[in-house]
């Protein structure tokens, strides 16, 4: 039987935890009656045991990196080391208020300062803000910095170039930052079509957002040239660092002429994905953009004391409250220090090696629309299979679940029909890659023989193919407590 909603486990009078009675003299109602809650609040009434059992059972209905191969392209589902978890969870870190005086949080400030220095070295860009809460937030922050930089020069530019293979966050960030996203075509090799790129270049372009390696897993070989051409018209180059994990210690965006980059620490630096966050999206920028970074940044005084430095007149302000995703950033610091320089390089090498090996094993079974040398991920297409027997990328994804494999990213990038985007990461062993390739091979054979089996997959899970159309039409986003006491399922 599926685990009921926690509301259906509610039992009148039941409690998880209780608080002590007040130890201060009762001085009567603290607040006037008119400000107090009238409509009573209804929350489940459950014991601690109920809550623990509920969440433990539910968590087993999830695939996760700890239990399953999770080759979700672009999301870098690498293993999250436990020493980082333990260290970041020390009460000396977690039990600190953001407005604690600097002297009472020197440990955290030193870690953040050191992390800033490390990120400068890793990206080759000399100024850092740790504030953005996730990758897309970093994108927005950097675009706001571009806008502020132009404003400081008395210029207002309208557009930002975005390749057609870009993450959806790129054009969305452009709009929120007040820019219009202009799409640049990919060429036959899956790279930026430089001629098309140049045709858009003029004085209205504020910059370009480029993912490198791109979402097909290909290195943009002409990235330095693209940077130069942008700079020629006074525009700036933003690198979407979603795939920085592929090039750690191999090559640095700063050395390409990039002006800004965000880093997804939950991808590149192994902080856990948390079922959809928290991440952190620090950004590194060129020297002349440094004064525009959000406020505050961490600084070390001549005395060796660390402190928060508020942004100056040119700072864009702040993009969230307080410092940033500190707990996540501490994990990233641990990861980088554990590995050291050569260790980071080996991460990139093995991310690429695993992807290249798996691609070699899978390309017999599905089409590889772009066969340039891939980096940490690759994109297959099920178009031929769909034309031949009506089996789509989605069906393959769902069938993989029956084999205990989390599906790859599907239908992205948009430049590939029936796309399956596969990123094995460096933390998986060869045997797992072989297993995936064998399963994929069997699934493709099944597709040709018994396509209906795939249309109805998965078969082994508690639920199969939730009705998304009905979900959007009938829109049940909230449990309504019944008038009568619900039946208890506990």
């Amino acid at each position, binding site marked *: 039987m599926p685990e009921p909603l926690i509301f259906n486990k509610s039992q009148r009078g039941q*409690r*998880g935890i209780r*608080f002590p009675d007040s130890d*201060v003299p*009762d001085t009567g109602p*603290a*607040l006037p009656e008119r400000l107090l*809650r009238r409509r009573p*609040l209804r929350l489940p009434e*459950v014991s*601690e045991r109920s*809550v*623990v059992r509920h*969440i*433990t059972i539910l*968590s087993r*209905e*999830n695939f996760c990196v*700890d*239990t399953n191969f999770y080759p979700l392209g672009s*999301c870098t589902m690498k293993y999250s*080391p436990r020493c980082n978890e333990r260290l970041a969870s020390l009460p000396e870190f*977690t039990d*600190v*208020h953001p*407005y604690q005086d600097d002297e009472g*949080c020197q440990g955290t400030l030193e870690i953040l300062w050191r992390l800033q220095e490390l990120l400068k070295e890793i990206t080759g860009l000399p100024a850092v803000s740790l504030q953005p809460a*996730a990758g897309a937030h970093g994108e927005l922050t950097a675009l*706001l910095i571009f*806008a502020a930089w132009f404003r400081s020069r008395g210029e207002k530019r309208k557009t930002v170039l975005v390749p057609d293979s870009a993450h959806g*966050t790129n054009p*969305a960030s452009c709009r*929120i930052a007040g820019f219009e*996203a202009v799409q640049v075509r990919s060429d036959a090799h899956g790279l930026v079509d430089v001629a098309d790129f140049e045709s858009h270049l003029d004085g209205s372009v504020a910059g370009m957002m480029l993912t490198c390696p791109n979402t097909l897993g290909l290195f943009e070989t002409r990235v330095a040239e693209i940077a130069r051409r942008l700079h020629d018209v006074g525009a700036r180059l933003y690198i979407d660092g979603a795939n920085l994990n592929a090039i750690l*210690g191999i*090559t640095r965006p700063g050395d*390409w002429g990039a002006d800004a980059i965000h880093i997804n620490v939950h991808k590149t630096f192994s902080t856990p994905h*948390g*079922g959809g*966050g*928290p991440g952190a999206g620090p950004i590194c920028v060129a020297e002349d953009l440094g004064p525009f970074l*959000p*406020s505050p940044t961490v600084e070390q005084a001549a005395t060796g004391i660390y402190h928060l430095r508020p942004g100056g007149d040119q700072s*864009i*302000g702040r*993009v969230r*409250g307080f410092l940033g*995703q*500190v707990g996540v950033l*501490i994990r990233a610091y641990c990861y980088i220090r*554990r590995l050291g320089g050569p260790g980071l390089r*080996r991460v990139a090498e093995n991310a690429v090696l*695993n992807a290249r090996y798996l691609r070699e094993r899978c390309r017999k079974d599905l089409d590889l629309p772009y066969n340039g*040398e891939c980096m940490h991920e690759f994109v297959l297409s099920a178009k031929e299979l769909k034309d031949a027997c009506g089996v789509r990328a989605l069906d393959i994804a769902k069938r993989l*679940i029956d084999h205990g494999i989390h599906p790859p990213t599907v239908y992205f990038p948009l430049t590939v029909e029936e796309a399956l985007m596969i990123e094995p990461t*460096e933390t998986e062993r*060869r045997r797992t890659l072989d297993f995936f390739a064998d399963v994929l091979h069997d699934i493709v054979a099944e597709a040709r023989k018994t396509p209906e089996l795939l249309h109805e997959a998965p078969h082994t899970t508690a639920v199969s193919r*939730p009705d998304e159309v009905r979900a959007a039409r009938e829109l049940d*986003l*909230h449990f309504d407590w019944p008038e009568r006491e619900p039946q208890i399922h506990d």
Partner: protein
Amino acid sequence: MAYLGNPPYIQEEMLHVLGLRSHADLFRSVPEALRLKGDLNVPPMMSEMELDRHVRRLAARNRPAAQTISFLGAGVYDHFIPAAVELLAARGESITPYTPYQAEASQGTLQTLYEYQTMIADLYGMEVANASLYDGTSAAAEAALMARAITRRPKVIVSQTVHPETIECLKTYLVNTDAELVTVPYREGCTDLEIVANVLDDQTACILVQLPNFFGIVEETDKLVEMAHAIGALAVASVNPISMGLLRAPGEYGVDIVVGEGQPLGIPMNMGGPYLGLMATRREFVRQIPGRLAARTVDRRGNESFCLTLQTREQHIRREKATSNICTNEGLMALRAMLYLSLVGAEGLAEVARLCAAKAHYLARRLAEVKGFEIRYAAPFFNEFVLQCDQPADRVLARLAKRGICGGVLLARFYPQMDSRILVAVTEKRTRDELDAYIEAVQQ
């Protein structure tokens, strides 16, 4: 080597399968001129044991709240976190999945989010909540963008009694758009309604207030909501979720979009994050809400099941037309909030809120009796108040610090002219002895 799936000899074999001689050959597509010569200048690798020692040494340079008696607040509060919240949220099954794109492999996450959405909507007396945003501050900025999209009007009004960092964040988000941000000053700690009346017009998308406000005051916002609605603008409120155990829910007085900092709901202070952006609204606005939404539906066998819904609002489908650029949000923090609310229940939340209020009022009343101190505003407050000193506030705080008391947030930190004022927050964790110690220390 740490964290790699394959030992070197297997890597060699794999390179061989690919017809490559070395790892360097994997990067032939990176132009030679762009490749790093040598390794990154990063300190040498450490064993787990060395790292452990290194980081614990740094940790020891912090002074955690538990080693002091803390009255710091201003948006982040030192509430009690039940053990089950910590331990369940630390499980591998909780921390290592990702966004539930594939429903069949993510029913646990999806159901939890549905439960979370229900609890947050109910807490605020609203109809729907999303599956989380980054934090309360950026959630307020998202709410302003949402109100602009709903009303198609440019002007955003914000009360000066909103947290100064929220106002700063709003400025940052709106500066490069055609929006106009108008700040309304306060009188005696409450939003000045006369000025609101002057600036509200038919170009106004929304007015944003905070409850309790930055100074801890529970403003009466009925009038303000009415004024906004009368001219077709939306009322947006940033509301402390713990206060909902005691105070009127914003849904009861007509607020259209509610946001909040979810940190008080079982999330450690962590020196600023990760936190949790709460957002709830009316059902009619659900298509303009930013972020993920989990829905209940049925699967192909007719079984109850859960999936993400209205994804056409989102960036991965809608690109530049999306309601927001948000992708990764705060799933694990939403889980913590859901666990916290389940464990304390409605009664427990009311207990916490009452304890906070009773203790804050006890401390305020006793402090007001001390010569040279007064409570700056007469308006009703919840768990936080402004202490006015007849001397520089930093001197008072230093005196308290000598007794191991972190006496509150110096308001001059935000408003330099307020150098004789302290924002004092009291949670259920403070005991009477600790409150008396505060009083005794300022009497010296």
